[in-house]
């Protein structure tokens, strides 16, 4: 076991990322965004994430937007760590690692955990799966859509007269990823006190279930099922909704009395501001159709930008409903230097950089690694000799 500095900074942390799903890959990306050294270890044939839609190319070599985004700031090692020649080199990597992140299915994850942690007391293993490593569903199959179904969010999103609707992205996986990153950081603090690593078991299902606003308490406190409410905010509060304007939609969220009064003034209907029929958020919710009929002719005279500006000038929370295209040129995100530019993907390519800036965050962008880009360098840094590295590469267990 290597010496672990008593109080290492983020830059001294070594993360080995074995993920081929969004959840674990995003957890590892967050560690990289916080300045840790993250090494993606994928099979010589490439991670399954490299083939995950959305694809940026239609023919070989395939370029996955998910892979390119999720692997930024990581170093790449192509290594068959389950083969005999690869296992020794992989062992060197794990000996140096503080955390290994996996998205393997349950049985494989538990076997892997037993194998690698039994000989490395300091090692933390963060497992991210759909349902967790125990329980009756632990071995069940999953997809992005079943993750939505398990989360309780699918049932409550969409039109009550139609089928439940998923979110546009694999966001349950991302939520599991942030939760897994929190678990990994917490395990580091625990290790500082105990000297021991542990298994951190995070599921998309629980991560999402703990990300409900009030619906779990609604059941336990009132025995009520939460329903879809299209763009209204479910059981109460109004106005919180999307409204049509001349060039699209705006979102207005004015649930408090002060915001309602300001909204009425901004929309030129001051007589409604103190109308007792609309005196509480609950009364407004029950009168939502009437409110919509009154607001919509006013709002339809404005563009999205005008509506958002006028309402914000009156301290009413509001925003244009922007397309992804428009978000890419949004002045707020531009002003905050949010974007990263993966030049190898071509001129217009841009993607979110750091979600937030920490003192330990990297200062320069590093794009996702090509397959095996850092294999030799990383293995050398982990203590493998040139002869050992050459043997791994020649056997086909590694690739650079």
């Amino acid at each position, binding site marked *: 076991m290597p010496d672990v500095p008593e109080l290492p900074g983020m830059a001294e942390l070594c993360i080995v990322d074995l993920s081929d799903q969004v959840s674990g890959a995003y957890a590892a990306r967050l560690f990289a965004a916080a300045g840790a050294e993250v090494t993606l270890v994928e099979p010589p044939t490439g991670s399954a994430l490299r083939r995950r839609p959305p694809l*940026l190319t239609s023919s070989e070599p395939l370029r996955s937007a998910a892979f390119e985004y999720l692997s930024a700031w990581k170093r790449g090692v192509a290594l068959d760590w389950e083969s005999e020649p690869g296992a020794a080199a992989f062992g060197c990597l794990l000996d140096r690692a503080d955390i290994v992140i996996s998205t393997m299915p349950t049985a494989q994850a538990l076997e892997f955990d037993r194998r690698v942690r039994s000989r490395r007391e300091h090692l933390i293993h963060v497992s991210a799966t759909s349902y967790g490593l125990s329980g009756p569903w632990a071995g069940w199959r999953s*997809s992005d859509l079943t993750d939505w179904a398990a989360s309780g969010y699918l049932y409550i999103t969409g039109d009550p007269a139609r089928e439940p609707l998923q979110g546009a992205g694999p966001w349950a996986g991302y939520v599991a990823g942030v939760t897994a990153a929190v678990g990994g950081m917490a395990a580091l603090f625990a290790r500082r006190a105990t000297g021991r690593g542990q298994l951190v078991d995070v599921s998309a299902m629980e991560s999402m279930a703990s990300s409900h606003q009030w619906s779990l308490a609604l059941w336990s406190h009132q025995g009520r099922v939460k329903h879809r409410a299209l763009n209204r905010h479910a059981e109460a509060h109004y106005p919180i909704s999307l409204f049509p304007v001349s060039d699209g939609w705006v979102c207005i969220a004015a649930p408090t009395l002060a915001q309602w009064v300001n909204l009425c003034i901004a929309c030129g209907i001051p007589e409604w501001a103190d109308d007792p029929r609309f005196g509480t958020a609950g009364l407004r919710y029950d009168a939502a159709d009437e409110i919509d009929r009154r607001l919509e002719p006013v709002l339809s005279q404005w563009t999205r930008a005008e509506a958002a500006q006028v309402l914000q000038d009156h301290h009413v929370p509001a925003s244009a409903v922007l397309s992804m295209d428009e978000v890419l040129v949004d002045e707020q995100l531009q002003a905050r230097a949010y974007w990263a530019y993966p030049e190898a993907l071509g001129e217009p390519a841009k993607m979110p950089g750091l979600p937030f800036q920490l003192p330990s965050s990297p200062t320069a962008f590093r794009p996702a690694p090509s397959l095996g880009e850092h294999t030799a360098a990383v293995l050398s840094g982990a203590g493998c000799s040139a002869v050992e590295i050459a043997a791994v590469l020649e056997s086909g267990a590694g690739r650079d």
Partner: protein
Amino acid sequence: MTSSILDGVRVVEFGYAWAGPLVGRMLGDLGADVIKLEQNTARGGKLEASAELQAALDDWRRGEAVEPTLRASVFPEGRPGPEPWNSAGIFNKLNRNKRGLCADLKTDSGRRIWRRLVEQSDVIVDNFSPRGARSLGIDYDTVRVWNPRIISVSCTGFGHSGPFRQRVSYGPVLEAAAGAAAATGYIGGGPIKMGHAFPDPIGGLHGTFAVLAALWQRDATGEGAFVDLSQLQTYAAVSGDLLLETSLHSQPPPRGNRARDAAPQGVYRCRDEQQDSRPSLDMWIVVTIEDDAAWNRFRDIAGDERLGDRRFDTSDGRVTHHDEIDQIISEWTRDQDRTQLAERLQAADITALPVLTNADLMQSPQLRERGFIVEWDQPGVGRYEYGGFPIHFSGHARPQMHPSPGLGGDNREICTDLGFTTEEIAVFESDGTLANEPPGVGGR
């Protein structure tokens, strides 16, 4: 074995709504000493004991429509009780494992309390606007002078810089601003927001990670930090793949419930069920068929000879004829029990799951066996179940659940911890700096 991983870390959480308090809850579940700082207006005012409210409660007891304010607050059995500000389920589920301090920071006494909090804490979490933070004197430039090791995490909607830095927001507004609402929707339909204010937990979880990473770094360097956490940025970050794709292809991501690498995939109606007081509720199952082998297994189980059509043999064919396949599957699932059907399909190695309601989550054998569903006896409310902590540590017990604090419920204990004398605390109480009720109650 202890659940107190963050033992010895003190956090002041000065947060409203959801994102900021979620950071506090996660850190509290991990064992930090989280002081929830509130203004006396934070939990709303007194609920009028009006005839309308009583009528609404009577309606509720008859199983009829509840006055929405009551629904939103999630009072136990719909009863606000004598202290409604302390009995709302939506508050209590989010603020367990914290101590409660209710103080007016704008008085001289309040500023003394705030300074000692800063001096004796490791982390401050707030979700005030930049202007609001400065006016309260809780901004980083102020607090770093008193405690250079402090980690200050400010969870705003748009961030502390940029042209929209003073804009106000709630979660749905950020969904719109991040492109998520426009990208979500039925095929051919308009934008759709999520069923809950989803950017809030996304921001709160990112904020929790930021706190831990900043604390780790501080312990190595001795230097504190300010984290300017824009919820717009964290929400856009979970669409990083979609934004990158859009930057190159300039077309919106596909809508609806289908997948780009699996067909068929959909949400199919099953037999209705009764889960609450309503006569029946719509119930659904999700099915994802990733490849030809899964399709063959599915076809065998469904047993409808129309699915044997050669046009459906390939993935491309199933994509082309997805509507037709959906129709056949829907006819097959319509009268079946969603749970039994999902179990049958999973047993045949087919990706399927019942679409879970909030009732299903609370009763889920998967969540219960893993100890996710927890309960505690909330003073003035009673013993109820809640969603628990989503992280399992093999070397640590599950977190203990301490009830959410009443408004100002720990004022004296916290002020004593901060080194104030009994006499000083009495002055704070008499001059109105400390409170344990909303304004307008108890004669004030």
